[in-house]
């Protein structure tokens, strides 16, 4: 794979990246909230990572810094991928929006806001995107259970059936 570290070098200014990890030939740059925008700008303008392939969030519940925001960047001219990771605490789940650097971060960040409740500062249009506007909570957080309806077996079928909502005429 062309993403192996032997084939490319990233000269990133001092202080922007806290550490670099390599897992299965994939490079992840760990950074923090304060320098993520500067790092993204540097990677786009200087290192020619033209495309923000993906931006998403992973919930590491029950760790203290539970949210990891991942930016998946791709450079068309150099044919390499790099990932940026920012860890966030539940009590300070805000991050500067990447929309000013990568324009397609708009919907990706709206999705993260919708499903995880991360607030992106200076986002042009931060609304729910997938869930109804009046939805309460952020469903992809890992402390929210998956199932909404009890599995029906012979012994509890009648009760489950009675609990089911029915249409009103």
């Amino acid at each position, binding site marked *: 794979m062309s993403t192996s570290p032997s084939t490319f070098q990233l000269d990133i200014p001092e202080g922007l990246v806290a550490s670099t990890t390599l897992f299965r030939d994939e490079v992840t740059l760990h950074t923090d909230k304060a320098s993520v925008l500067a790092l993204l700008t540097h990677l786009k303008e200087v290192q020619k990572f033209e495309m923000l392939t993906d931006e998403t969030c992973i919930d590491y519940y029950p760790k203290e810094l539970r949210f990891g925001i991942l930016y998946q960047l791709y450079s068309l001219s150099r044919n390499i991928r790099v990932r940026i990771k920012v860890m966030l605490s539940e009590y300070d789940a805000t991050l500067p929006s990447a929309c000013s650097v990568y324009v397609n971060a708009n919907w990706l960040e709206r999705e993260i806001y919708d499903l995880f409740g991360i607030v992106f500062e200076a986002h042009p249009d931060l609304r729910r995107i*997938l*869930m*109804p506007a009046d*939805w309460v909570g952020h*469903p992809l957080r890992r402390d*929210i259970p*998956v*199932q*909404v*309806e009890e*599995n029906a077996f012979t012994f509890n079928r009648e009760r489950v059936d009675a609990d*089911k*909502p*029915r*249409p009103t005429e």
Partner: protein
Amino acid sequence: MGLEQKLGDMGIVTTSVEKAVGWARSNAIWPMLFGLACCAIEMMSTQSPRYDMSRFGMELMRASPRQADLMIVAGRVSRKMAPVLRNLYDQMPDPKWVIAMGDCASCGGVFNNYAVVQGVDEIIPVDVYVAGCPPRPETLIDGILKLQEKIKGEKLSKWQ
């Protein structure tokens, strides 16, 4: 079955209004052109040359709920879609029928989670459930034939 047997071959068939109306209704169902997810693709296949749903008098899909009398709920219904679906159902004129096509529309299918309504019968009354994920076109056609039988046996008083 009654009078014409006694009177001989007069070219007249007697039946009840109910049966005549049921027969007419069952063979000219206009489904609503409305797909949600994977099952909608199989619904398209049902109308494609190989399966050809028009053999059963229901090739005329109407995009407007005002002109349709059958709603085939083809696919999973999300919580965001549910009010829209109910609104569409309410706009359809009586008499109207509903087929829940596929597992997701029938009971939520594999998606027992926050986003999917656990069976469309939570929001609208359903006449025929078609199982499968997605159901084969033959299964959908079978469901439609079942619905036609059901319509033939319906009482006029049901739709006042």
